[in-house]
């Protein structure tokens, strides 16, 4: 069906003016990239970031204030930028190019191997000096822009969803963790001559945490380094399962994580672009779990080559570590298969068993061949490939660069190994679910459309089923956009968490009993 009218997509005069202000700020950055040497860097950096912020704030105020609080999705599919139109492609390509330069050609941003920074990196030197006492790097520039994006688009998001306290509080949380934990804390630690460390960046999302250079850095930093290392281990093996059991993976993915933070704020205008087909879901399961296997293999290999052979130096030797890891993985799989096999689909079972067999086989082949490698390649090589393929190409270039085309959670959905682990915990051992309210669903599809993870929420809601999906990050938008009050995110008893009633509430009791008996 063709829709020609685009009235709701039009920008008001104030919004045009605000866009102009923001673009001037952005233009200063572009000039800096083009090597314009600003005389007073502090002034121009402040001006640039200030204008971008002010522009966004004015735009958001004009867009949302003065209107009733409520759902504000008018014209989303008509707008070029949010409806995969011309400007969406321009933005997507620009972001992609930015990531390519950032990762592989930082010299074009002004990073000089010998000598002081130039270009845009030099523009950020004063801020970096202020926080960490060092000149800026391309990562500092990126981190600053990332944080500014979460702050200003977080503000916009809060205005947009100001009727919904869950969304408001959640957004304050992602802003807090980005600004405090991801941006300031590591830089301040550097200033204090401590290792660069963000406690909220947990392995395996932070795939470098257990690599040799990082462990050496921790160990040479004395007690505080050991605490950091220990916290990293406790995070993934103790804190994560407990919090996911209590609240679902949302405690991390949409409340703490930086990737999630950007997706929920700057990425919010693109959340509806995710693919909802069953085919996409299938691809998602294979790809994300493959990444998880890759990162596990890589980390085992790196640690293996880092450790020594002699028990006298350190109790954790190559052998102990390797067979310990193999044993741990086997135990984990055994527990899941014994206690939770009913909840796994057929392909999940085959996939899990397949992966385990492959890992164990490779370990034994390489171990017995005695070539010093554990997975055919040296640990550092696997790490390099992982960093290139997953760390840079997947999470950066595709994950964020393609926001305006594939939606805001491509990385979180298809690529993030942390999300894969939390997802398994959520699916199998969690009190979290999205409850469907009896028979009230009208199958309108707002929930599915605005699910950034591409979950077909409606498919469950219209059957009266609760939604228990490993990929759900608990952003709460399905519940917010539901016009009939059908969905609620909640933590409750495990009993009845996954229900399937063939006939919806509202019918006479006999019919419901009858059909439910049959389905058991």
């Amino acid at each position, binding site marked *: 069906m063709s829709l020609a009218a685009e009235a*709701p997509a039009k920008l008001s005069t104030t919004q045009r003016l605000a866009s102009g202000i923001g673009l001037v700020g952005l233009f200063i950055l572009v000039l800096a990239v083009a090597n314009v040497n600003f005389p007073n860097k502090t002034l121009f950096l402040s001006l640039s970031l200030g204008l971008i912020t002010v522009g966004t704030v004015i735009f958001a105020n004009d867009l949302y204030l003065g209107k009733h609080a409520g759902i504000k*999705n008018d014209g989303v599919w008509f707008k070029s930028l949010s409806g995969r139109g011309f400007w969406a492609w321009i933005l997507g390509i620009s972001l992609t190019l930015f990531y390519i330069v950032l990762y592989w050609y930082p010299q074009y941003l002004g990073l000089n191997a010998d000598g002081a920074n130039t270009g845009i990196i030099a523009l950020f030197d004063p801020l970096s000096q202020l926080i960490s006492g060092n000149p800026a790097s391309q990562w500092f520039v990126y981190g600053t822009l990332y944080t500014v994006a979460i702050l200003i688009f977080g503000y916009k998001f809060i205005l947009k969803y100001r*009727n919904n306290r869950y969304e408001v509080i959640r957004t304050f949380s992602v802003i807090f963790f980005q600004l405090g934990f991801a941006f300031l804390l590591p830089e301040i630690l550097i200033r204090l001559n401590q290792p660069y460390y963000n406690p909220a960046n947990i392995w395996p999302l932070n795939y470098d945490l257990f690599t040799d250079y990082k462990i050496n850095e921790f160990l040479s930093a004395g007690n505080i380094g050991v605490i950091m290392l220990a916290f990293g281990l406790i995070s993934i093996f103790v804190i994560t399962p407990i919090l996911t059991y209590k609240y679902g993976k949302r405690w991390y993915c949409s409340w703490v994580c930086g990737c999630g933070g950007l997706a929920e704020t700057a990425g919010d205008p693109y959340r509806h672009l995710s693919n909802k087909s069953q085919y996409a879901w299938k691809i998602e399961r294979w790809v994300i779990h493959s990444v998880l296997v890759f990162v596990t293999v890589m980390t085992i290999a790196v640690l293996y080559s880092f450790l020594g052979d002699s028990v006298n130096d350190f109790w954790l030797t190559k052998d102990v570590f390797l067979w310990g890891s193999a044993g741990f993985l086997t135990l984990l799989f055994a527990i899941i298969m014994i206690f939770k096999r009913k909840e796994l689909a057929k392909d999940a079972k085959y996939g899990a068993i397949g992966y385990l067999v492959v890992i164990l086989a490779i370990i034994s082949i390489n171990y017995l061949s005695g070539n010093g490698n554990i997975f055919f390649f040296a640990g550092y090589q696997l790490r390099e490939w992982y960093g290139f393929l997953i760390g840079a190409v997947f999470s950066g270039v595709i994950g964020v660069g393609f926001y305006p085309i594939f939606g805001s959670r491509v990385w979180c959905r298809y690529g993030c190994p942390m999300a894969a682990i939390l997802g398994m915990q959520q699916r199998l051992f969690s009190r979290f679910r999205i409850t469907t309210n*009896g028979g009230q669903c009208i199958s*309108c599809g707002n929930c599915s459309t605005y699910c950034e993870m591409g979950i077909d929420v409606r498919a469950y809601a219209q059957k009266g089923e609760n939604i228990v999906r490993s990929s759900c990050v608990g952003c709460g938008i399905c519940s917010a956009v539901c016009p009939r009050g059908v969905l609620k995110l909640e933590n409750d008893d495990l009993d009845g968490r996954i229900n399937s009633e063939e*006939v*919806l509430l509202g019918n006479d009791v006999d*019919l419901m009993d009858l059909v439910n008996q049959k389905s058991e």
Partner: protein
Amino acid sequence: MEHIVIIGNGIAGITCARHIRKNSGAKITVISAESDYFFSRTALMYVYMGHMQWNHLKPYEDWFWEKNRIELKKARVNKIDFEEKILHFASEKTLDYDKLVIATGSVYNKFGWDGQDLKGVQGLVSKQDLELLEENTQNCKKAVIIGGGLIGVELAEMLKTRNIEVTFLIREEAFWHNMLPIQDAKMISEHIKSQGVDLRHETELDKIISDENGRVKSIITNSGEEIECQLVGLCTGVRPNIDFLKNSELETDKGMLVDEFLQTNIKDVYAIGDCAQLKQPPAHRKSIEAVWYSGRMMGETLAQTLTGNVMKYKPGNWFNSAKFFDVEYQTYGQVSALPGENEMHFHWQHKDNTKAITIAFESNSNKFLGINTFGIRMRHPVFDKWLNEDRKIDHVLANLKQANFDPEFYTRHEKEIFKSFKENLQEF
């Protein structure tokens, strides 16, 4: 193999088809002249407002139907030969059936106004109506909506997103007062006005005036006022879509008359959804319910009968929902617009006028009858249980917290509601 043919691919027909397939291998054909695939009619508005695209309206992906061996046919049935069990299509082709389910839904009412067939005058029920609305609002600055029901308020919301000025004529003294008690209706009226809609209470359409091209240029109200407009939305309710069966052996009144098994007067012919009229509706239910939920439940019930498990249509406690601009509405049980002798209402309203509840109970026994809730989500299963258990209003108010379904961290009002009830108790 038995051939079950369903005319109409709306919620009633499609639910019936799906549940037949769950229990039987019969051949199933679903016929529609409206759309290739089942879509959610309730969400038409969101396509116009740019919240969704047409594809999002389809609750099942296109491969679903073939996989479940439900044949879809796009055709219009002109005539049915009930004797020979043959459908005659507009294309002059035919189709045999063994059992026939008629689920043709509703069409919007026209009450014989002058100018009701002019260009720019339309209702909003079908996919074609939505396409027409798109056309009719290309150069539209002002619109008049006739009739204060659920489609009327949706149409008002839709048009406002296109910056079209809306005048909204309703017959009652407050919005939807034929269904809502007066305080509820008044609150919604205020909310509609606050959205910039020119809402006229107790105003009806007299006639629609044409310009020189046969297109609407204004309307005249029953008080004689002329209102300029380029679009007239006819939202004065719907009626069963049964015109193609007039003058057949099928027994009809307003809708197709069916017994408690949803069977018409002709053997092997059934009617469900909006187009069906129950000869003996259950207590507290209407004979025609043009509601998504009723269509779905009829589909579920009839599928049982058609697959050998003969079953009466017995809907449980009444429930419904809607959204008036930014205010969500849910209802469970019976809350009369004009309470009779033994029905009392307790009304609580938040000071910002976006939240309210009205609880109906029996004045002599204090038995809880039903609740209307605005801006506060409530749990369907909890109220269904309380209604089945014949709970008293004291129990409902004391346990209202259990029924709350608002998102986490929302401000809760149970204490305030309870206090308000106690304070007003003297009045009752």
